[in-house]
């Protein structure tokens, strides 16, 4: 009977339950997503150039566990808030406390387990989709990739089972301690009165100090190692918490005192924010954390992604060189689009010991080279020279690496032109007639440069594959040109690139569900407040503005602190990245756009629920 009543009240507040259920499901899904990777040790070790990657993922797992724990506490409080009035009513009609407690316990567990099961499936789907789509987008094919592993599943199940049980027990204890009367009037308990300003002052300053300390440690992470990372994390999280909890309220109060303005709804906004910031302290702390993690992960991922073409283009002037093209390879070469250079050089090789090239070919058609700037090759000065060379010697002297790469390609890594025939194969340039009569196995090499290797991905990959198959003496670094280098770099950096993008997706999703969930849980209280304001004479557009401003500040805080975190945190990657800020611009734009869209959606939903509209006939 009691269960029946409980069930019918759930139906009554279906919307709230759907919000709650969705939030829980996403939390489980993201946890699963992360745990699946974190427990795939083979994948991590095969795909990372960071030595302690597994350990970093373990720390990450703890961090996410902490975030999820706080998130589940919100969800649980939300459930309690939803239910306690109804439970109070049930008790007024004669249900005993233990009956009601059991009901609540059962409800918590049922909701939690349902969300866990659905969440795990959603998590698997998310992992599979994100994983495969990302690898496609980044042209990666990472070894040991799985969207599911047993250990990850077990960790997820155990984690949520433990927390849900604790939540259930906590709810029961809470119900036992609470007076019936308080249950009946339990609608607005989630707002606390602001405390004395002196405390805000002390904690506010402390928060800022902790934050700065964490930035300093991050800067010196190379000397401090893993302990430094953990310390920085703890200082940063507690600093963020205190800043939100105290510094910002202090600033709001000073602002209010300084302007002393009563104009419009300014005082209302400040009052709302003061209340919200103390009620949202934990929420905004974890949202800041997730924002920073998403932005940081994307910056690093994108940084590596951008490094690949830069490094590649600094290493070769042409896209690919094909030795002795077969019919099929010729067909593939013809398929390439945006070809800016294509020429074929003849060679003759004697017993894999002597190599002849035709001098004339090299003085008639220019091999694309990387112009040197001092000894460094720079991407900017890349060009196909207009002047021709008197002979190959000149080319070899002026642009040693250009010729070298070609010879490496022809001789399967067995020659080094700058060392002047110090390699296993002796290379020399003959004049036209001498070359024509020279004996040896003759062949050709076709040098190609295309505008965009990404646009020709499949064809180029096929060419590399067939070259490897056709020449048994080729190894991965024998085929020269930017594209083979890109392939090489991808296998070296792709893992980090992928993890960066993947984690950014996970954190952004979790962030979205957390912030929206909590912000929207205030509409019931605010509906009344905005109605009062409209009775007092505030017009609809002013109300909408006021509401958008308030939510804007709530969204803005994690964004600003998150940006600071990432700006000061990125130097931690110095040991593995040339320019740590390389991907920051891109990541900032992407994350901010998503975040703003997400803000607009929240405001839209909020105002829809508040029904800020004059009913006019």
């Amino acid at each position, binding site marked *: 009977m009691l269960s029946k009543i409980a069930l019918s009240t759930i139906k009554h507040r279906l919307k709230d339950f759907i919000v709650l259920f969705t939030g829980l499901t996403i939390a489980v899904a993201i946890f699963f997503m992360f745990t699946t990777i974190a427990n795939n040790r083979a994948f991590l070790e095969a795909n990372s150039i960071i030595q302690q990657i597994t350990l970093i993922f373990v720390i990450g797992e703890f961090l996410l566990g902490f975030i999820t724990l706080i998130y589940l506490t919100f969800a649980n409080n939300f459930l309690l808030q939803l239910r306690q009035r109804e439970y109070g009513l049930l008790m007024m009609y004669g249900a005993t406390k233990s009956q009601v407690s059991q009901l609540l316990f059962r409800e918590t567990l049922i909701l939690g387990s349902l969300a866990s099961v659905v969440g795990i499936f959603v998590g698997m789907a998310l992992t599979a989709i994100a994983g495969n789509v990302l690898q496609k987008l980044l042209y990666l094919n990472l070894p040991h990739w799985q969207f599911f592993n047993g250990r990850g599943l077990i960790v997820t199940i155990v984690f949520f089972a433990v927390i849900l049980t604790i939540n259930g027990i906590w709810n029961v204890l809470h119900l036992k301690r609470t007076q019936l009367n308080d249950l009946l009037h339990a609608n607005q308990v989630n707002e606390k009165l602001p405390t004395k300003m002196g405390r805000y002052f002390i904690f506010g300053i402390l928060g800022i100090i902790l934050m700065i300390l964490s930035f300093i440690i991050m800067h010196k992470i190379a000397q401090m190692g893993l302990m430094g990372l953990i310390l920085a994390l703890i200082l940063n999280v507690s600093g963020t918490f205190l800043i939100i909890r105290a510094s910002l309220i202090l600033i709001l109060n000073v602002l209010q005192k300084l302007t002393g303005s*009563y104009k419009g709804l300014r005082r209302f906004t400040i*009052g709302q924010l003061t209340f919200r910031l103390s009620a949202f302290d934990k929420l905004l702390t974890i949202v800041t954390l997730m924002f920073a993690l998403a932005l940081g992960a994307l910056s690093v991922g994108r940084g590596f992604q951008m490094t690949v073409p830069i490094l590649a283009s600094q290493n070769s002037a042409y896209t690919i060189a094909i030795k002795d093209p077969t019919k099929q390879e010729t067909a593939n070469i013809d398929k390439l689009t945006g070809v800016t250079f294509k020429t074929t050089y003849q060679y003759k090789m004697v017993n894999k010991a002597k190599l002849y090239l035709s001098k004339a070919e090299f003085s008639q058609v220019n091999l694309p080279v990387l112009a040197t700037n001092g000894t460094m090759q720079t991407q900017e000065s890349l060009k196909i020279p207009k002047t021709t060379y008197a002979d190959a010697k000149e080319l070899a002297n002026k642009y040693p690496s250009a010729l070298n790469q070609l010879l490496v390609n022809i001789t399967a890594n067995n020659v080094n032109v700058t060392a002047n025939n110090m390699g296993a194969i002796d290379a020399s340039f003959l004049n036209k007639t001498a070359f024509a009569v020279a004996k040896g196995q003759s062949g050709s090499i076709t040098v190609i440069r295309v505008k965009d290797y990404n646009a020709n991905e499949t064809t180029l990959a096929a060419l590399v594959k067939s070259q490897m198959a056709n020449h048994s003496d080729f190894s991965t670094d024998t085929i020269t040109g930017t594209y083979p280098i890109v392939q090489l770099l991808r296998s070296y950096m792709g893992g980090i690139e992928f993890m960066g993008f993947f984690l950014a997706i996970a954190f952004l999703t979790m962030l979205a569900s957390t912030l929206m969930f909590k912000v929207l849980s205030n509409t019931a209280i605010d509906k009344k407040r905005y109605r009062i304001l409209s009775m007092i004479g505030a017009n*609809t557009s002013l109300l909408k503005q006021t509401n958008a401003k308030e939510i804007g500040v709530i969204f803005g805080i994690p964004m600003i602190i998150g940006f600071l975190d990432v700006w000061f945190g990125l130097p931690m990657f110095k040991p593995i990245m040339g320019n740590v800020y390389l991907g920051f611009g891109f990541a900032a734009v992407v994350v901010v756009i998503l975040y703003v869209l997400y803000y607009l959606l929240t405001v839209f939903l909020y105002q829809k629920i508040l029904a800020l509209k004059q009913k006019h006939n």
Partner: protein
Amino acid sequence: MKNVIEVNNLTQVYGQKTNKPYKALKGIDLQVANGEFVAIMGPSGSGKSSLLNVLATLQAPTSGTVKVNNQDIWQLNDKNLAKFRGETLGFIFQEYNLIESLNVFDNIALPLSLQKIKKAQIKKAVHLVAKQLNLTEQLNKFPTELSGGQKQRVAAARALVHQPSLIFGDEPTGALDSNNAREMMNYLSAINMENNISILMVTHDAFSASFAQKIHFLSDGQIVQTLERHNASREDFYRDVLTTLGNFNE
């Protein structure tokens, strides 16, 4: 005498688009003279709140006109309607309708801040009304730190601080005990007489209604009887009200 409120043939139909429309108001005609204190009584579901909500511009009527100070309020656009509400009307409702995130001072000051009034003037007006309602000690507290009677007085202070010409009350004593209720009604009739502020109040409580000069009885969406106090004492009027209510119940 001039009328502050003139209502003509007002109807309110709920759920018009459903297959079961419900007529809550069936053609109400009503006048409230300048400075008059009028109460509306009637059984639950008779349409009292519906009527008040339309008059107070909180809800648009299905048909009919409502003129306040000769202005047809439902011809105003949203901006002017809000301005009109802010400057001319004051509201006191059964739930106190205070904003928990503002302290008492800021709650009372709200209507004035919306009208872009100078800070010094706002302070003066708030302190004055707080003194009248015996709230001076509470100004720095938050609503959750107040008793029911105090909250209702804050709500009244906020309704009065901008010196509206018309006050609406929906069960303004509904959540108060009899002592607090008497105090609130005494206060309302005092400002009605001294400041010439018109009051229209909905109540189911005969005692509260007996403070008015005129009582309309509403039943099933229509005004079925009107009782006037004339020069009778409040106590006598109270007895009349009780008798009339008794007749209704027969």
